[in-house]
């Protein structure tokens, strides 16, 4: 059998959301940077440590060589935080159904393609990433700065994330019962007044202006009945149907599954 080089296709389909999903998933695509929130401000929003303080560690640095021999350890290059023995910390994003640039499931797929050393979990409206502390800070900054984040329709919420499927408020912000961020009418931008678990910040952290509706619709990864219906993308439907069929059959009678 001739050897073929595996070439990932990332996502099927030719509709706009399908193309946008492929962009997010493909690690060779550099995502557009829309803002530059200072690292100290990101650390404040995450709320795991005081900016400038040392990272707490849970084990000695790997360079000390106390670890037993292991072939896997020899194969896998540890990420920076693992080398230093950092704690595991998290960041969690909530994406509004009202044209947020990304959706939780696509986040999971994107994280898996783009980042190493993560543990991610998908829920209906939110997506958590667990990672070594210094690495999660870097990833959080990248995700806040780039085009997967809209300041009004994406929230950084560690707990009480309710709001992703609720109508936006009059200022166009996604509902948040804990009001971690607010609309600054004078500057026309969104600012965080609490960290991701609701602890008040010393002073507001501005994250910038929300993106215009037109931009959000052009960059959407959502299949919606009032946008591009998933049923209009034949290839996506075929692929989804295949996955669901295989999942069902494999759970029921795996020995009966016959595919080319």
């Amino acid at each position, binding site marked *: 059998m001739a050897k073929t080089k595996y070439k990932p296709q990332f996502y099927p389909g030719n509709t706009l959301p399908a193309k946008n999903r492929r962009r997010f998933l493909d690690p060779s695509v550099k995502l557009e940077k829309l803002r530059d929130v200072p690292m100290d401000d990101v650390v404040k929003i995450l709320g795991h440590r005081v900016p400038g303080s040392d990272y707490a560690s849970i084990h000695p640095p790997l360079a000390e060589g106390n670890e037993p021999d292991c072939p896997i350890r020899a194969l896998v290059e540890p990420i920076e935080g693992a080398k230093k023995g950092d704690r595991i910390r998290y960041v969690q994003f909530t994406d509004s159904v009202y044209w947020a640039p990304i959706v939780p499931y696509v986040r999971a797929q994107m994280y898996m393609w783009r980042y190493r050393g993560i543990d991610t979990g998908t829920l209906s409206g939110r997506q958590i990433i667990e990672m070594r502390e210094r690495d999660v800070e870097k990833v959080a900054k990248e995700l806040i700065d780039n085009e997967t984040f809209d300041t009004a329709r994406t929230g950084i919420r560690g707990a009480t994330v309710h709001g992703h499927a609720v109508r*936006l408020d*009059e200022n166009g912000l996604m509902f948040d019962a*804990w*009001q971690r961020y607010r609309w600054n009418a004078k500057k026309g931008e969104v600012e965080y007044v609490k960290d991701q678990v609701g602890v008040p910040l010393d002073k507001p952290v501005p994250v910038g202006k929300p993106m215009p509706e037109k931009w959000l619709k052009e960059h959407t990864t959502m299949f919606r009945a009032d946008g591009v219906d998933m049923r209009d993308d034949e290839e996506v439907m075929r692929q989804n149907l295949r996955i669901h069929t295989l999942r069902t059959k494999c759970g029921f009678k795996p020995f009966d599954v016959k595919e080319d």
Partner: protein
Amino acid sequence: MSNPASEGVPLPEIQIFPERLLLASTTEKLLNRLYDVKNVRQINVQGEGLPAVIKAGPATGGPVNHPERKKIKVKGKEIELTVQVGRIFVEISDIDLVPQALKDIEEVCKEVLPFGFTLEVGRYNKFKPTTSDYKRGLVK
């Protein structure tokens, strides 16, 4: 604002469904304008709950200080708004008066809710006390 007093027949309600969640100032303005509409018997509001205190996570016990949770003045009476209003139910005193009320309410909404809304007629709230109302002692 719900009143568990019994009504002989279920009276019609006009549901206002704004396309955005309302700020407290808009809610105040809207309610005051709606109470000026003829044959409005009572108004109920519904929306997303705004807690006063954080009840989970490391900030438990801390205040939320949500700017939309505040006292509003409706027809001279102070009411503490504890929700971000998403639906408004306007009860009309007779079914025959609904068409005119609908027209009047639409006029008010067009002015106060420039981002869009839908109106619907039906009965959305209870119209007689429930067993739990008796148990809670709400019925006198």
